[in-house]
């Protein structure tokens, strides 16, 4: 099946400033959302998509205010439904570059059903999940990604909810693209978002984002400068999975699971280190990578990027085929089809 591109490319080069809106950004000072907005603004010129063909769809929550801060078409919808609204917009006009922005509660609690089905269909949507592991706009209740046992306003004795890992959810729903980014490393976020935009199918980018007010430092154990290099690994397709301040640690598959090893210790050499392949269809290793925490570094970058004909293409191919071969060329044909008779 020939790959088709539906979103028209701009005949001029945009800059970040072309996408800045005149609206006052009303997030709290220091909120991770500012950085994500900046990364996104830097991403649009890199996609080359025509500006008027870009549509931002969001749900409800702090992060969902983002369409107001971007000078494109935008739809700030209702809680949890951004994916469904985006799906309809893209179906009605496949020439749109559709971006869905949601928080963790928006996307995985009230909107969980829409998220998994959007991912399953693999329509050409670019989904960003701002994951701060808390309900911020309603002032601090636990979300589906809040760490087990955490005390929040609605879990004064600690949560007894096991959290979702967005990566596992996406891959469980047969997702074709999943990446993780950090709000505090905006250049990498832009790079990841650009790749997400180029992916033909549903892409999901989870950005670990800090909420200064209601869940400050929730990601600090991995994002603090002092520990970041040792507690995270930036995955690059075709490259060995190396991490650590001294670039001497790596990931090895021991036949059962992934383990972190130090090159040069216990006879470990570079040959033992796994090479990242984001394109393998099997979700096994990707799932393990998405799940890493604790003793293993948290995976950042594009974890999974698999080619699978998008719903958008399948839909348009079917429409074209039906239009070319269909019996009815206009509604009058249909009205007059089958058994009809004249009354004089």
């Amino acid at each position, binding site marked *: 099946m020939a790959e088709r591109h539906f979103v028209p490319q701009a005949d001029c080069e945009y800059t970040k400033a072309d996408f800045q809106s005149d609206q006052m950004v009303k997030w709290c000072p220091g909120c991770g959302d500012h950085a994500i907005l900046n990364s996104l603004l830097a991403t649009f010129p890199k996609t080359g998509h025509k500006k008027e063909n870009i549509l931002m769809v969001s749900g409800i929550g702090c992060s969902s205010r983002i369409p107001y801060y971007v000078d494109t078409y935008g*739809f700030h919808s209702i809680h949890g*439904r951004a994916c469904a609204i985006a799906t*309809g917009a893209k*179906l009605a006009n496949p020439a749109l570059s559709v971006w869905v922005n949601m928080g963790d509660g928006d996307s995985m609690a009230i909107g969980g*059903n*829409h998220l998994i089905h959007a991912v399953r269909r693999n329509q050409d949507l670019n989904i960003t999940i701002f994951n701060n592991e808390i309900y911020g706009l309603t002032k601090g209740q636990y979300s589906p990604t809040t760490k087990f046992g955490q005390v929040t306003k609605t879990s004064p004795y600690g949560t007894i909810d096991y959290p979702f890992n967005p990566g596992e959810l996406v891959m469980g729903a047969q997702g074709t693209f999943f990446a993780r980014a950090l709000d505090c490393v905006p250049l990498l976020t832009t790079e990841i978002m650009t790749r997400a935009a180029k992916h033909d199918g549903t892409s999901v980018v989870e950005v670990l984002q800090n909420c200064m007010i209601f869940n400050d430092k929730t990601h600090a154990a991995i994002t603090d400068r002092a520990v970041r290099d040792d507690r995270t690994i930036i995955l690059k397709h075709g490259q060995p999975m190396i991490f650590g301040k001294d670039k001497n640690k790596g990931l090895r598959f021991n036949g059962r699971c992934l383990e972190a090893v130090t090159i040069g210790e216990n006879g470990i050499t570079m040959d033992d280190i796994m090479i990242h392949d984001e394109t393998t269809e099997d979700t096994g290793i990707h799932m393990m990578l998405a799940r890493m925490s604790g003793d293993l570094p948290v995976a950042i970058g594009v974890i999974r990027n698999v080619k699978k004909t998008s719903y958008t293409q399948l839909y348009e191919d079917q429409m074209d085929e039906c239009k070319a071969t269909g019996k009815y060329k206009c509604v009058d044909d*249909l009205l007059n089809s089958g058994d009809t008779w*004249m*009354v004089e």
Partner: protein
Amino acid sequence: MAKQIIETDSVVVKFVGDSGDGMQLSGTLFSDAAALGGNDIATFPDYPAEIRAPHNTIAGVSGYQVHIGSHIYSSGDKCDFLVAMNPASFKSNLKWAKKGATIIVDIDTFTDEAMTKAGYTSNPFTDELEREYTIVKAPVTSFTKRIGEEKGADLKTTEKCRNMFALGIIFYVTNKTLTQTEKYLERKFAKKPAIVELNKAVLTEGYEYAEKLELIHSHIVKVSNAKMPAGKYRNITGNVATAWGLLAASERSGRQLFLGSYPITPATDVMVELAKHKSLGARVFQAEDEIAGICSAIGASYAGALACTSTSGPGLSLKSEALGLAVMTELPLVVVDVQRGGPSTGLPTKTEQSDLNQALYGRNGEAPLIVVAASSSANCFYWAYTAAKLALEHMTPVILLTDGYLGNGSQLFRIPKVADLPSITPRLATPNDPNYRPFRRDEKTLAREWALPGMEGLSHRVGGLEKCPDGPLSTDPENHALMVRNRQEKVDRVANYIPDQEVTGNPDADLLVVGWGGTSGALTLAVEEMNAEGKKVAYTHFNYICPLPKNTGDILRKYKKIVVCELNNGQFAGYLRTQFPECPMHQYNKIMGLPFEVGELKNCFTKILGE
């Protein structure tokens, strides 16, 4: 006895049997043949919610009623001919047979076991019963089996043909030929000539069996042909008519049709029908749930489609929040609600008009929208078309109320030319218009302009938060008051663009009968019969529900007595009372999951006239 043919204006035939006995098909084939033969028709399928309830039980009875004649308004009350394929269907439908009706039963199925399952403790065919009805105890199963054996068909295939035997009998007693059905069988099973052969043989056997049966020779009827306006006709169900109306509106408005829906009885067939028509540009999306159905439609609407979602009661409940979003964003949207018995899961396969309040009021905040209702299976086409026209021209969601009776029932439809339908002019913005503002309004209609993603120079944001006319968010108290008033006024002003409400029957009557939506068949007939009997009754039937036609008050104030008839507990009556408190109103309400019967309506009107 010599064969005797009675000429009549109309006849009601009801086919009942176990789910899976093919009663829906028998009914459809009979009504199609009658229509092609020149009769006016109306049909009403009545089936259980279970696909195959336990065999031979009352719960599993499935029925299909066909009313044929010269001028048919409804599927009729009680039947002249009843075909009952097993004891359970006989037991549960005897009450729907007119006194003196001809009842054809498959006597082979009246075994002790099946009769016990149906709840009979003794022989159902009492002398008294045989005096009241003409009961034909036809050996349907054994005759069908014999033909199956002759043709070398297996038992399972043969049993599926029993309905053809019964249909053959009905064709004989209604003085019709088998040609139409034979042609259907040839078409349907074009690749299975053996099946065609078998079905045709059983059909003919049924016909010939009746021919030899003197018992019914005095009951053969010849139904007068329809007296209808000249034109080209076809048979159509309400749900298909709805789907086609939307397709026509899409073609006429130049906006691509989008339907985002989730399967739900009895609305599913709207989606099923539209899914067939990709060649006509219908973009159908089967969503993961009702909410995604309407939300995808709202997204499609923002992107420029004639966006629709189809559902039934519980689904409309789920769509409430998103409907509010469509009101707030002032986007065109058509919501088709094929009503069924509620609340909750209620009576999924039965009809009711009880979603009216939900359609009018079922949203948070001040959330006015247009509500219209179809009143016949065929005019679902025009009301779907009208709903789309109003949505696109007034930039607002529109709820179209039909119901299970209209949706599943069928009627003759005079085929229009799409070019003859009223024009539809969507309020599209002009690319690069420097004066474009998201909530700039048309002076007359107050509709905003529709700027579509992809249009240069018009990028803007919409959403559920209150905005000011220029587009940005606003929590300003004065602005909110203005926007709420504007959204209400916009819907109110639709009244300037719809025709006046009409009164039929005897306009000088003392009693005005008021109906709305799917009940017009029975109401029209009841009023006609009353007037023919010398009583004075006027009748007005509403299709425009919100806003109401401008002359509604003038009509209501003219009559001493008013009775509002509806298949709910008085929702439309309550709605009218809030607007016209000066008009006292009687109510006639039926909440049994069934359509009105002419008889009960006439009793009610007579009683009110006598008070």
